[in-house]
């Protein structure tokens, strides 16, 4: 059964999550991918205020398709996370609570997750039409010129994710694959 977590998102609500658990998130999350991460970290380096409060934020690595009339958003599945590895440890050290994406992360990101009590979630890559239905509101709040890569504030309901990296150092990609191989060799 999935664990339901509603905002406000806090370290306390995330601290007991473990790799492999299914979670349904309800609340405000922010979108950012390659170009937005570059700009956000450059703003921070210049001493400027980023487009949203990094502390306790959940960032979804996604560049959605354009919304059709009457819809808040188009298809919205995760993009591959490793491209954000260069930026993620800095943001996690500033208090970012969660990342949603897909695929392996660097050792630096894994260490930053544990060091900060953060969580890396995976959404199902390529199931973007399915996830679009969980996005109830969407608003571009920065970098409109980036199009699909602009920073959006999303309100999501029961957004389905799986814990990949947890605050205790668990890693679903490693453990899940090992568990499967052990189960078929029995």
């Amino acid at each position, binding site marked *: 059964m999935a664990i339901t977590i509603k905002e406000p998102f806090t370290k306390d609500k995330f601290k007991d999550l473990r790799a492999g658990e299914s979670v349904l998130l309800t609340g405000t999350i922010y979108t950012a991918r390659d*170009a937005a991460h570059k700009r956000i970290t450059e703003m921070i380096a210049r001493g400027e205020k980023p487009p949203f409060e990094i502390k306790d934020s959940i960032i979804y690595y996604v560049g959605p398709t354009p919304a059709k009339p009457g819809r808040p958003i188009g*298809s919205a599945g995760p*993009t591959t996370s490793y491209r954000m590895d260069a930026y993620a440890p800095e943001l996690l050290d500033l208090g970012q609570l969660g990342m949603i994406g897909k695929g392996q992360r660097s050792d630096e990101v894994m260490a930053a997750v544990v060091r900060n009590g953060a969580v890396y979630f995976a959404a*199902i*890559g*390529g199931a*973007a*039409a399915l996830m679009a239905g969980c996005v109830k509101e969407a608003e571009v709040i920065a970098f409109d010129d980036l199009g699909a890569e602009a920073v959006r504030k999303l309100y999501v309901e029961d957004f389905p994710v*799986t814990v990949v990296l947890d605050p205790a150092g668990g890693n679903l*990609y490693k453990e899940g694959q090992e568990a499967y191989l052990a189960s078929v060799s029995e």
Partner: protein
Amino acid sequence: MREINVDTIKENIARMCIEANHYLDEDLKECMASHLAAEPSEVARNILESIGKNIEIAEEGIFPLCQDTGMACVFMEIGQDVHITGGSLEDAINEGVRQGYTEGYLRKSIVRDPLDRVNTGDNTPAYIHYDIVPGDQVKITVAPKGFGSENMSRIKMFPPSAGEEGVKDFVVETAKLAGANPCPPIVLGVGIGGTFDKAALMAKKALLKPLDKPNESPYYDEMEQELLERINSLGIGPQGFGGRTTALAVNIITAPTHIAGLPVAVNVNCHVSRHKTVVL
């Protein structure tokens, strides 16, 4: 000489950009269903079922299958007895892509320069490949290619001594290194032989082959089956959470090559292996 107006080509490309991003072919859906039936892991089956639901939602025509609606790869097979009229063929292809991606609410994912990275705003230019073939028809295939999987593709110039084992190990290693990144279950297109660039082109064309037909060569058909089995013994599974279904299919295309060489290219695609074809 038969004449085909560029407007006909443009309209068909615009339509196929939209259709390819919403409707998968039956061979892929059947392939997915047979892998679901053989999948021992419950976690993996749940993901494959979610992917099935995603396909059904996309078929309603409102949300594309994936938010990465791809770089528009357009393959043109032009009969040598056809005369294209009404303007520039290349402009017509790009105009079709522009219309399809704009009117179809598809994502604009192309930047004008690989380093300055300014988005062109209309998903052009397309990647276009032309083949001149006998006859008086034009066959157009539109294959929107996502880059989460494209980024996991590899090419290597082996010495001939690497042989069959070297080629097979490289394909399996590519799937292993890709791991969870390209949204498994994946489809692999493999190009063996030719030149450096020809191998990559064959790998991409191999992704367009039907999944329900055996390779024309019994030798390479057997190799495809063996590679699929080896990849599905790695344990990566759907989304990398563990399971049998890491790959749905492996398709191989080969070409004659040089006495000194053995090029091998592997083009990785995700489970949203999209392409539409029309013959004019």
